[in-house]
């Protein structure tokens, strides 16, 4: 079971990287970041199960809390960007370009 979940966590993280590299929409990037954070949390919980330590689960709890903060601020930035630049595609934001 350990080996399955270790591989699953590595695969989730790599899929998150793939999503970040291919998505153009900023919300799609945020979804890929959530995948990567979940991969890390899954690893922490797995290692908490194999070591019996509570510390690992506390770190997973912190990851979930930080993911909530990141999503809230990220979506607020995306909404504000949409209002100001009329796009959410990450490669079309060129407000500073002369």
């Amino acid at each position: 079971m350990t080996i399955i979940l270790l591989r699953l966590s590595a695969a989730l993280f790599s899929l998150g990287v793939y999503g970040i590299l291919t998505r153009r929409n900023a919300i799609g990037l945020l979804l890929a970041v959530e995948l990567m954070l979940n991969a890390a949390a899954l690893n922490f919980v797995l290692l908490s199960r194999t070591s019996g330590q509570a510390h690992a689960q506390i770190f997973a709890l912190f990851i979930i809390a930080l993911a909530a903060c990141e999503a809230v601020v990220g979506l607020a930035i995306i909404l504000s960007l949409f209002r100001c630049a009329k796009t959410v595609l990450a490669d079309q934001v060129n407000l500073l370009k002369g």
Partner: protein
Amino acid sequence: MTIACLLFSALVLIGAVWVVVLPNLFRAALSLGLVLLGIAALFILLGAEFLAFVQILVYVGAILTLVMFAIMLTGKRAATETRHAASRRSIPALAASLALFIVLVRATSPLRGLTAVEQPALLSVIGQELVQTFVLPFEVISLLFVIAIVGAIVLASSR
């Protein structure tokens, strides 16, 4: 146990592939919900029930709803990716993420011999550690929540 673990892992993996490849962003967000629920099920299998419920409450209940609101607010035009622009970059991205996967698998291969201990970490121990050893990070996170909420209101409010 192992069969349930395999089934939920397959579910999470399929959902994660959908999250990154589906051109329609709303469907990608829904499959992110599938991934999050599957990971919550894996948490229960690993004996971390509290984290599973936190995962469902925070991720599926709050973050996913927020993401769907953002997708709907930013309009139909942006919701689907244009096909050709995405496929142009997908081969180098696939190579990079595959290389990362191989590196991660090799790095975690010494951990393969670990087996689950008899007793999973108790919730009472987690709660005590959270207010004793980790009291400073705990308070910092609550401060961070306030900052994030105020920052989000300031950023998203239309003057």
